[in-house]
């Protein structure tokens, strides 16, 4: 009887850890291949040069494809209805600082939520968990860069947890 009680306590402690590890926490640095250096973009005028847009300039980490991940960032809403967001871009910084170049393609994730989420403070940082896909290039069936099928969205609390 006593053993059973200890077992229940143990189960109780362990189970949240087990469930939370379903989504592996990653940082934005992990999304960048270790040997890649971001080049400063050329000064050429984007619209004048007739530059062919490359499908992806910044490479993705292939190993992260089809991984269940959890990452924190800022939401740029793309598809929304009222306060419910269904699709958005997740980026590491907010505010489109003029002094630095925009985030490269491997530092943003296009997230498509399984269920639209109501978020009262869309400008605040959030944790997003979901299934990540990493595509090297644009094909008929897949868009280049990082996409995620989002399962959970949580606002960050003030301690940054």
């Amino acid at each position, binding site marked *: 009887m006593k053993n059973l009680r200890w077992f229940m306590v143990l189960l109780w402690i362990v189970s949240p850890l087990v469930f939370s590890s379903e989504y592996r926490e990653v940082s934005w640095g992990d999304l960048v291949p270790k040997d890649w250096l971001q080049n400063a973009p050329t000064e050429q*005028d984007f*619209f004048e040069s007739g530059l062919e847009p490359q499908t992806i300039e910044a490479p993705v980490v292939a190993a992260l494809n089809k991984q269940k991940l959890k990452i924190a960032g800022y939401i740029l809403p793309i*598809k929304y209805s*009222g306060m419910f967001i269904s699709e*958005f*871009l997740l980026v590491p910084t907010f505010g489109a600082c003029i002094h630095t170049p*925009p*985030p490269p393609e491997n530092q943003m994730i296009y997230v498509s939520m399984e269920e639209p989420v109501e978020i009262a403070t869309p400008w605040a940082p959030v944790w997003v968990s979901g299934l990540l896909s990493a595509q090297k290039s644009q094909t008929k069936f897949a868009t280049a860069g990082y996409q995620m099928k989002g399962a959970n969205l949580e606002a960050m609390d003030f301690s940054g947890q």
Partner: protein
Amino acid sequence: MNPLLLLRLTFKSILNRKFTSGLTLFSIGISVCLLLGVETIRKEAKHSFTNTVSSTDLLVGARSGSVQLLLYSVFRIGNATNNIGWDSYEKISSHPSVAWSIPISLGDSHRGFRVMGTSSEYFEHFRFANERALSFKQGRPFSAVYDAVVGADVAEELGYKLGDKLTLAHGVYDTDFARHNDKPFVLLGILERTGTPVDRTIHVSLQGIEALHTDWQSGTRSRDQVSAEQTLEMDLEPKQITAFMLGLNSKMEIFKIQRAINNYKKEPLLAVLPGVALGELWQLIGVAEKALLVIAVFVLLNSLVGLLTAILTSLNERRREIAILRSLGCRPSQIFILLASESLLFAVLGCVLGVLLFIFSVVLSQPLLQQYGLYISLASFGTEQVAFIVAVIAASFLMGSIPGYRAYKQSLSDGMSIKI
């Protein structure tokens, strides 16, 4: 001793003090109505605004603030500070990353409604509220220079049918000296209702706007007037537009294109993500709407305290009545319930009155609010509002237990002494 009797006694007791009861009830009703109204406007405003534009990746205008750009280009609130050159628009919209673009020209009006110059791409690519496309109730998009397509509210309020003639005016206010009387437009299409500012807009081609202003180059009507027929011979390619919307081939390129537009050397431009600009708008409004809610809550508390005061005051007059009830065998606990249920009854009736007042004021104010892009409907009445009402009733019952308790104690100590 059945509860129905207690209810009857409470009810009759309240009726006996008709005037003060009526005032208290009215006060609670108004504050409930206010609370419901504030909450509804908060929710509905957000909904109204976010439903206005959908599937647009970037909004571009002359460099100003992002919220300002959003407001004038999408909500038709406020004005642009500057225009964009047609060359810049062509250059940017022809870039291979761009899937579609919609140019917009604002600045004219017609009998209180804004006029928007645009291209046929508007009817093809514009989306609102969950990717709904525009559809026509009657007629079709414009094709000739002096064709016009109006939104549902314009047609309804001004009683327009297909084929009617419209005279547009220069500037936002429709005054006699500002009208382009010599160049009337023909109504070619009426759009289905969208619940967005589209309903209150008159759409014409960019060429139409250009034709309109051929003799307004100096800012006012020039001496040599150009007739409508003459304008048809002229080259009406627009030279300037107010703003444009972009849809891109790949969402991942949004930042690249946005940065490129912001750094465009030929002209100072601003490109924003509508979703982000909306978020900034909420931050601005957020403080105000929270303040509104706090005020509404305080108004309600004030009414409840008023109710408490009214009941406590009546308590003194009712000591005799309570003594009589005691002599008839009424238990002190029943005295408590009698008094506490009085405030409960007030609260319930007050909430009913408040809801009725709320419905009434929504119906009354709908047309006024629509002019500001707020589309309030009663459909938003959901669980949150019901929770509010339940909270109000519960709070009143708690308050009612104060006089209830006092009456309870008094009934025990008074005994049979005649305390008037």
